[in-house]
């Protein structure tokens, strides 16, 4: 038996927000009345819905994770990592208070290094967890490794990435993506990822170029605005009004600076995801991610509008929007031999992405 991914798109999203709304609102209600404990079940319920409405070729995905295992993962992370960290930081501060600054500082440094390392491990394990709980035609994914090695890579590559004025950040991101996905599998087949940092790097350079351009452009603009504001008051040039106008100009400049920086970040991430997803393969299936910078901006603007105009309630729909965005822009081509697609032999953890939860970083 053989399946050709459809001509349209191998990935399709079939959900509607009307269907999602009752889930989101009851989740919110239950999360509030349980003082947040229901959050884990809310996440599982939300994912069950989103996965079940995501079609790959001719069958929908299934989320097989449970709220209980997310809770266990969180509790484990709290006991095994957060508690020791809390104790160490208290001990370090007590040491500093007793005049043992060097020892206290060393202890703090070591604990931050440990967190840095664990954040890397957490990223790996979150992806592994999500693949291991994703079913397609009854088959799941996973990884044969635990991510301890990846944690080390994450540490040194991130560090080296920032070393030469941050110029190697794209390299570290792309390289870590390749490393992480190459350790993952779905069914019997390994994922491969051979993304190149070149295309991403060009976008990244905008970060360095932009401040100079913006500085000149906006300073001149700000000064002119300030002058114009001063003149506007009554024909004559009023020095006070020039001052006020100049301050407004500076505020506009600061605002504009962050706005432009935000746009560059979006442009960078758009290029990044196109490159890294496009370089991924799974057996004979290749992937691509088609979202353009403009589409990313529309997504984020939509998020802002949704949240602001609903006085924050719209926040509960963001996960839906993001997942829909992800699935609709994800493409795949190639062929899948269903007979060969057998169950994954990877070990699955019994608990959820607690470590990741603890460090609050995204999985993908």
């Amino acid at each position, binding site marked *: *038996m053989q399946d050709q991914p459809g001509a349209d798109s191998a990935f399709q999203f*079939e959900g509607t927000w009307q269907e999602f709304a009752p889930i989101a609102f*009851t989740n919110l*209600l*239950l999360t509030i*009345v*349980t*003082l947040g404990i*229901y959050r884990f*079940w809310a996440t*599982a*319920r939300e994912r*069950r819905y989103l996965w*079940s*409405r995501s079609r790959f070729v001719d*069958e*929908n995905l*299934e989320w*097989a994770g449970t*709220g209980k295992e997310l809770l266990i993962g969180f509790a484990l992370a709290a006991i095994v990592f*957060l508690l020791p960290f809390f104790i160490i930081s*208290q001990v370090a*501060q*007590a040491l*500093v*208070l*007793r005049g043992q600054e060097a020892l206290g500082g060393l202890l703090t440094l070591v604990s931050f290094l440990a967190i840095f390392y664990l954040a890397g491990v957490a990223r790996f394990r979150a992806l592994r967890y999500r693949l291991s709980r994703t*079913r*397609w*035609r*009854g*088959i*799941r994914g996973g990884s044969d490794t635990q991510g301890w090695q990846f944690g080390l890579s994450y540490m040194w590559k991130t560090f080296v990435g920032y070393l030469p004025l941050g110029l190697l950040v794209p390299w570290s991101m792309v390289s870590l993506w390749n490393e992480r996905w190459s350790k993952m599998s779905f*069914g019997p087949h390994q994922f491969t990822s051979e993304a190149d940092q070149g295309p991403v790097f060009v976008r990244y350079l905008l970060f360095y170029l932009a401040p100079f351009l913006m500085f000149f452009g906006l300073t001149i603009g700000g000064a002119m605005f300030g002058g114009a504001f001063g003149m506007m008051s009554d024909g004559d040039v009023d020095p006070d009004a020039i001052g006020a106008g100049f301050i407004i100009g500076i505020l506009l400049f600061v605002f504009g600076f962050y706005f432009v920086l935000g746009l560059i970040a979006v442009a960078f991430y758009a290029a990044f995801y196109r490159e890294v997803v496009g370089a991924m393969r799974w057996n004979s299936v290749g992937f691509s991610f088609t979202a353009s910078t403009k589409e990313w901006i529309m997504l984020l603007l939509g998020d802002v509008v949704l949240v602001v105009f609903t006085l924050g309630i719209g926040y509960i729909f963001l996960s839906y929007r993001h997942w829909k965005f992800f699935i609709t822009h994800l493409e795949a081509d190639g062929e*899948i031999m*269903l*007979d060969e*697609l*057998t*169950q994954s032999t990877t070990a699955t953890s019994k608990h959820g992405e607690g470590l990741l939860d603890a460090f609050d970083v995204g999985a993908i």
Partner: protein
Amino acid sequence: MEETASPPGVLPANWYDGVSAVRHEGTARLSGESALVLEEAGQPALNVPLGDLVSGGALASQLLYQRVSQPDFRLRLPLDLPPDFATALPQRRKYGGWVDRMGLGKAVIAFTAVSAAAVALFMTAPEWLGPMVPPAWERQIGDAMVGDLGGKLCHTPAGDAAMAKMLAAVDPAETKVRAGVANSGMVNAVALPGGQVMLFDGLVQQAETPEELAGVLGHEVGHVRERHVMTAILRQFGLSILLAGADSGIGNTAFGIASLGYSREAEREADEYARARMAAADISPLGAAAFFERLGGGRDDEDGQENGEENSEDAREENALIGWIASHPSSGERAKAYRNAATEGKDYPPVLTDEEFAALQSMCDEDEDVEEFDLF
């Protein structure tokens, strides 16, 4: 997929065995009360015990079931189950085990009640848990938090003796709290975790009579004896749990507790303790009353010229007083309470002799080894 009309008692079904990605398409029928039989053309029938099935919730147009014995097995049946199937198969999972069993409405009410109780328990825990902690534990916790302040407390033989005498008057218990004068110009006094009471040298210098100091010392000892310190530690600890992740530096915490951790009620209790001890030890409460009046600016004309201070110096110290006032109840009311506690016409013996009081006041000047007391 076209829906073929099935005979009664038989449902269209499809399933994955969890071993390969090949889909099995066929029918499901109940076999007695204990099993579901899945049949596919050209394949042997599959007998699934009903007890082995659990609900996996619902997909877009199908109900999902898993097998306990084969976690990767997936069976999908139509959304609208006939009554006999509906009763035989496990209940559809929706919100999660407890909520599904209780129903959403009941679960929300139950969770709200439990949460409210938990919040109430958590909020009041410091008040009833604090006094239950053995003082020895509090001392250890406090020492761990504060560390050794020995080097920053002023010591002279005569000053120590005077302090011990004053402490004995306001703290008759067998195991005394530890009290000392901290080498700091701040006009303040604190009860630190671990039953450690400190008068700051700035406050000692401000005092005009030993009775004033006895009042303040008695007040701070009251905080320790009434277990306010432990209560405040627990409250702070609870807050830091709530604000998990927010910075809760231990140094800041310890002194934060000491300087603004007590409720109005606790301050009142500490005052009552001080007045009771002073009455028992025959110490005039009028000194403390005068002190609070000065703090509150009630008697501005009594300026402190006797130490040769300049006016600017006065102004600076007046500002320093604000710290103590801000964290304590209205000085006027307190002064009145202390004044009322005095027995009319009674002649109280002085709590310290002039020499002892002078030794206390010169303690920080004369101690050459003492370090500057620096809070932050």
